[in-house]
């Protein structure tokens, strides 16, 4: 009987172990599923369907009377027509108006603009030139070539019809169209056309925002941490500050967005959608995280170091700034990196202060309209075009890779500078 009871007690232990292992496995499998499903969605955005056209351009059309290049004339020139007539040369049988429209739908609506930018960048000498240019196919043709548009569904439900498929296939057969590395994705900002949309604008927006965040939060947090550890006299005010810091760390991020909206935007009149405001809001949000980490780091420095400094006649301030702070720096940096990673992935407060606008230009200053990477991901996953989904996934992969490396850096720093006193 005793053996039986022991058996059942042991079985209970094994069961508990199995529950534990399976729940950890569940969490890890979910992490893998998440990353793999996003990876499978996103890898194809590394490539983009291009087609090659040979175009002859006469630069004399774009100079003013004195012979200097004239941008206005360049902008007014019918670039779309040039691309379209080049495309029609491949398919001389297309004559009717409707059919032509269908044909032009397989190339990007921005093809003319891209051609103009290409010619501008080339800075051609005067005279007539023949150029061979790779331009974007439309997002639907792109998705078809990647096999992401199912052609089993009836033609009228599809975004690309049989005729267009035949044209695209014929271009591919003639080696005029093919999938190439998607450079645009890394060099341009957002666009209405998926094939011209890139992440550079949002990356720069995120960088500007984070710069403001770190400049705002890090000094304040370190000063606050030193005060709370060494100078605060125990009492009601100090207790109240501590309660506030701990509580702010758990306030939902969207509430900080509301704060930014009503204080920074309506009361102070700072510009909407600006990295300055985004950075301040994220700074307020990460402030408690960095304060808590800095305090922990300062507390881990043995009191003997401070006491030795005090004993040799240093003032309290000198002991703190000259002796404790340098030793606490690695810990503070680790906390800062974690706080910055949190700020970089944050979306909700930025939605509140209008960083969710559609912005074609790459931001250059702290007050120009900008968007941030997670917001860009959100906006793309909300769009109707299938091609935006894969771009969104690819952007996620980059963001997550960057965040994971930030966190790994924090772990490595912690490991490297972890001293047992």
């Amino acid at each position, binding site marked *: 009987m005793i053996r039986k009871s022991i058996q059942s007690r042991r079985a*209970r*232990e094994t069961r*508990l*172990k199995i529950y*534990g292992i*399976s*729940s*950890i496995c569940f*969490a*890890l499998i*979910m*992490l893998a599923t*998440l990353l793999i499903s*996003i990876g499978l*969605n996103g890898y194809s955005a590394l490539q983009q369907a291009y087609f090659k056209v040979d175009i002859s351009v006469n630069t004399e059309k774009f100079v003013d009377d004195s012979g200097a290049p004239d941008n206005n004339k360049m902008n007014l020139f019918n670039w779309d027509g040039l691309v379209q007539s080049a495309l029609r040369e491949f398919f001389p049988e297309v004559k009717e108006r409707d059919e032509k429209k269908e044909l032009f739908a397989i190339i990007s609506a921005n093809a003319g603009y891209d051609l103009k930018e290409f010619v501008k960048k080339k800075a051609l000498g005067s005279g007539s030139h023949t150029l061979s240019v790779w331009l974007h196919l439309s997002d639907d043709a792109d998705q078809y070539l990647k096999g992401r548009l199912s052609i089993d569904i009836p033609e009228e439900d599809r975004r690309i019809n049989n005729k267009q498929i035949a044209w695209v296939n014929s271009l591919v057969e003639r080696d005029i169209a093919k999938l190439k590395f998607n450079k645009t994705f890394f060099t341009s900002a957002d666009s209405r056309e998926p094939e011209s949309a890139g992440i550079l604008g949002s990356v720069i927006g995120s960088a500007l925002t984070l710069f403001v965040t770190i400049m705002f939060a890090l000094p304040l*947090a370190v*000063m*606050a941490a*030193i*005060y709370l550890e060494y*100078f*605060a006299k125990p009492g009601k005010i100090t207790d*109240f*500050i501590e*309660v*506030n*810091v*701990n*509580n*702010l760390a*758990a*306030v*939902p*991020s969207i*509430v*900080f967005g*509301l*704060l930014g909206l*009503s*204080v920074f935007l309506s009361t102070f009149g700072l510009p909407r959608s600006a990295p300055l405001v985004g950075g301040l809001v994220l700074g307020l949000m990460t*402030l408690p995280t960095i*304060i808590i980490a800095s305090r922990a780091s300062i507390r881990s420095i043995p009191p003997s170091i401070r006491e030795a400094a005090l004993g040799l006649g240093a003032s*309290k301030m000198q002991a703190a700034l000259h002796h404790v702070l340098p030793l606490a720096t690695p810990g503070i940096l680790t906390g800062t990196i974690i706080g910055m*990673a949190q700020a970089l*992935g944050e979306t*909700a407060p930025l*939605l*509140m202060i209008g960083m969710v606008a559609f912005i074609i230009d790459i931001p250059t200053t702290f007050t120009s309209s900008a968007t941030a990477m*997670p917001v860009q*991901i*959100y906006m793309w*996953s909300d769009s109707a075009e299938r091609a935006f989904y894969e771009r*969104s*996934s690819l952007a*996620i992969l980059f*963001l997550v890779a960057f*965040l*994971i490396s930030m*966190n790994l850096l924090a*772990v490595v720093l912690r490991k490297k500078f972890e001293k047992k006193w």
Partner: protein
Amino acid sequence: MTLPLSFVFFVLLGLSVYFYYHAKSGIVRKAALFSDRTKALPSHYGQQSFLWAFIPSLLILLVLTIGGPNYIDQIFYNKIQELNPTFNESFVSLILAKVINVSNGKISTGEENIIMLAKDYKIAFEQLHFYRGLVVILCAALLGMIISYRQKPGSNAREQVEKFIVNIFFASAVIAIFTTVAIILSLFFEALRFFNLYNFFDFIFGLHWAPNVAIRTDQVAAEGSFGMIPVLLGTLLISFIAMCVAIPIGLLSAIYLAEFATPKIRDFVKPTLEILAGIPTVVYGYFAALTAAPFFREIGFSLGLDVSSESAIAAGAVMGIMIIPFISSLSDDVIRAVPQSLRDGSMGLGATKAETIYIVILPAAIPGLVGAVLLAVSRAIGETMIVVMAAGLSANLTVNPLESVTTVTVQIVSLLTGDTEFDDIKTLSAFGLGLALFFFTLLLNIFALSISRRLAERYD
């Protein structure tokens, strides 16, 4: 002459640095003159001059930079109103916006009056920038001179500098209080304006949420109704589903990691779970909307159930996955904080490890575990991106997890990202919801923190 902000700032900085060296060498000279010793290091006198010149001037610069444009806007607002006494408020604001845009060169107009005003506006701004620069630089110069005149070898600069710095440190610590106060005040006052337009009790107890206010006054159908019960219920439903996923898995993982796992497994699993915690919520939202929701829909379809494409269960389950590492790492800390002596005592009496966990460790850790769970609930309630992307917009009064529900945060985002006026009842209602959200999570947080603190005190 224009003095841009960066120019003024760098002149200020340069001036302050100048006073640093000026005071540093000056005090040595003074000491030699009086054949006296200085009470502090020369660099302390330098620091004192720097801080005296720099900090007050910097504050003036900040105030003028933030307040100045608002003041000018107010003057022009009054001016436009005086010129056209018949215009109502929003029209005056519209004209003001036009004037500002014309003066920036963002738009062009043919209206003479506006061009005139825009010119004046531009001049006013240039004047503001000029006087801002002048005041700040003069102030720094004056303060720097005063302090270097007053510095005597006998005065203890170190004490004064350190007092000054401690005050700055104190000010940065107090920012935490200010932030909380600012959150409460801003939410409270905007919400108060909302309750002026809409009955408070109808908001708290109303069973119908449909914030579609008529755009034109002659529209009959759309009378906005702001009863938050369905929104609140949706929030609680999704958080409940999330907790059903996160609590068992998080707790069991924590128990295994704290009590059974070898150090090797721990070193691998803990950082991996931390990666799960470090993934931005927008990624979970993407996963919920594009992978989890169709998945649940398929399963429901094969079982003959009708699952909404924005079902509460998809958003809740993904949110649960997001919260697993949060609960597991907090509970891991709590379980490991239980003193080893309790474990040893129990094992010594012949209990198995499982019995020790069930009978000794978990009861001892219960307050901390409850605290961890409450913090997780507060996080689930305040979570925004997952529900914005995967949950619905229409407020259904239901507890069926297969249907679409909406949450407080979804409503706040959808109310505030549209192109509505700031004084609109719709925008203001978002602040009402924000206030409710803030107090709800505040209560949970305070409760959770006090519980876990009590545990920490018990075993210290």
